[in-house]
């Protein structure tokens, strides 16, 4: 008897779940609200990127709504967690499209999840603007997908040019995260351009995505004694690497890419006098940048990183396009996006035929006494 009650309650639970899910679909879409979706990792190891980007995006939405929205209609940003997982991302996207009936999507935040959703997005002709997915393939053969950030190889080239031209470096070593397409992509471009510029790559070491112990690799790099060590990865990996390198007394200049943003907060000492390529500089005199930083700090208390800045810009670009389109029809928005030009926190954004940013400036940042200092700007 007990068993029957148990199995019956299970069946009831199942049936219930089916109806809840089915029932959700009939959610009404009010005409007064324009819904935009956001997808990124809000939990798990990569949560900081998704969270930053979504906070930046939300800030932009709030500002726009305060200023009257799009033709009097308010924007609603619906953010779903991708957990940095393909299946989760696809489910989240399906839900945004069917349940929430969004008119456009800001996302995904990471390249992997964006690529997983790409085919669906293309098939649906959904206007998509990824703030931060840097892998080349994201926008290839996808007329409806755009992105606000420059590409992996673009900043790798910029970093190499800076190393040769501004720092006068002749030798460099690479420290690459295998299993991380971002790290692999940026360092491959760096290697190519640095060698073409006449420099020598004296060694190339790698580590896995979950590695925390870099002593073996750094011991080898120390022996090679290069002028530059190029480590394009995210803060949570780069920080310990820099700290360990300092501990081991490695004197080379370390360089990296936009994943370094935020390094000054916790690893100021270790990162002293190192450089990285970024989308914007917080100490830029630009009024746009400063007002963004103030607003962000008021809202979230922390200094925005480049993910936040790109999320913020992405929403503005998308809003501009929807306004210009004068409708929420996908085709109209996509056409409008191709013609949009926006002066944002991360520079001037206009799209090339792929939907990638055209001639976007790469900012070189120097870490100095726990501050990110604007060093120079490079356009490839």
């Amino acid at each position: 008897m007990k068993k029957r009650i148990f199995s019956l309650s299970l069946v009831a639970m199942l049936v219930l779940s089916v109806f809840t899910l089915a029932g959700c679909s009939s959610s009404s879409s009010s005409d007064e609200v324009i819904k935009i979706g956001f997808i990124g990792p809000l939990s798990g190891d990569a949560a900081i990127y998704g969270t930053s980007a979504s906070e930046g995006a939300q800030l932009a939405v709030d500002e726009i709504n305060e200023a009257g929205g799009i033709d009097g209609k308010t924007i609603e940003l619906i953010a779903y967690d991708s957990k940095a997982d393909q299946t989760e991302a696809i489910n989240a996207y399906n839900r945004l499209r069917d349940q929430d009936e969004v008119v456009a999507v800001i996302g995904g935040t990471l390249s992997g999840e964006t690529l997983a959703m790409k085919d669906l997005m293309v098939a649906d002709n959904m206007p998509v603007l990824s703030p931060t997915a840097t892998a080349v393939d994201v926008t290839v053969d996808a007329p409806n997908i755009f992105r606000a950030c420059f590409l992996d190889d673009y900043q790798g080239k910029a970093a190499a040019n800076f190393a040769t031209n501004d720092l006068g470096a002749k030798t460099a070593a690479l420290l690459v995260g295998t299993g991380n397409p971002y790290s692999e992509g940026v360092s491959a471009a760096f290697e190519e351009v640095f060698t073409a510029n006449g420099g020598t790559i004296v060694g190339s070491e790698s580590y896995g995505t979950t590695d925390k112990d870099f002593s073996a690799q750094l011991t080898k790099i120390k022996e090679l004694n290069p002028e530059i060590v190029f480590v394009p990865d995210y803060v949570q990996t780069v920080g310990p690497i820099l700290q360990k390198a300092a501990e081991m007394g490695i004197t080379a200049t370390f360089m990296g890419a936009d994943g370094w943003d935020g390094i000054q907060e916790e690893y100021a000492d270790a990162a002293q006098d190192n450089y990285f390529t970024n989308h914007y500089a917080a100490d830029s005199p630009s009024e746009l940048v400063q007002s963004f930083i103030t607003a962000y700090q008021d809202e979230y208390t922390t200094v925005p990183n480049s993910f936040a800045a790109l999320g913020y810009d992405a929403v503005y670009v998308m809003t501009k396009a929807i306004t210009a389109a004068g409708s929420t029809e996908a085709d109209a928005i996509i056409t409008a996006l191709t013609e949009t030009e926006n002066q944002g926190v991360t520079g001037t954004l206009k799209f090339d035929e792929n939907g990638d940013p055209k001639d976007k400036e790469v900012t070189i940042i120097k870490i100095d006494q726990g501050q990110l200092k604007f060093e120079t700007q490079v356009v490839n």
Partner: protein
Amino acid sequence: MNLFLQQLINGLNVGSIYALIAIGYTMVYGIIKLINFAHGEIMMFGAYFAFIAATSYNMPVWAIFLTSMIIMAILGVAIEFIAYRPLRNAPRLSALITAIGVSIFLQNLALLIFKADPKVMPKLFPEKIFYLGGIEISSTTLITVGLAIVFMILLDLYIRKTKQGRAMRAVSEDKDAAILMGINVNRTISLTFALGSALGALGGVLYSVAYIQVFPTMGVMPGLKAFIAAVLGGIGIVPGAMLGGFIIGMVETMTKAYISTTWADAIVFAILIIVLLFKPTGILGKNTREKV
């Protein structure tokens, strides 16, 4: 040659931490035949408590270690009491799933409380580099290895020489016989969890000091590696866990140094598999034949 010695020290450093964590796995396994999947999370919480103690309360170093170890010992006992004890006589796989559940729970609890971004562990030991015949050893490495070895010796003495230690061994040999001998099995199991968790916490603190960061998923990989170490050495055998820990640490570092960094983990697993195929109960494990 110097480079090799340097890498050897690196390996010793990682290995000693793996060994500390592996002991917790092996003790718990020895006594209730449960792979305590949550042990990696014990290690993680240990590191967080040390982080809080160091940054918010400015405690002296010994107090940081002690606080973290004591809190985690209590937490370990609590976990056993709440989640594992009701399943003592259930199928072993159910207990395993519960342990996985506890592991996921603790990870997400930490995520909720501390958020995902890694916290930077302050340097607990004075920064100094010692030169030993051409090779450099940082004070952190020296203290990590030293502390790990001291605690392992203490534990070994405790298990072999004290009454409670003997009770532990008795329970792990034969629970029913131990009950007949008047040993309080529940208390002995609690004690095992307390000790294992305290050592796990110690491993966590040392790990976070050596690798600077504290974050919610930090227990997963070292936990898995330490578990492998425990199996490699012969699960249930404390000296086996220590040996396994050092071997895994050494193999990992040497592979990274001389063979391939990308394949390091794969090689560690391959070695484990090969060892187990030839010695199915681990290096120090006894071959027990099933009685027919």
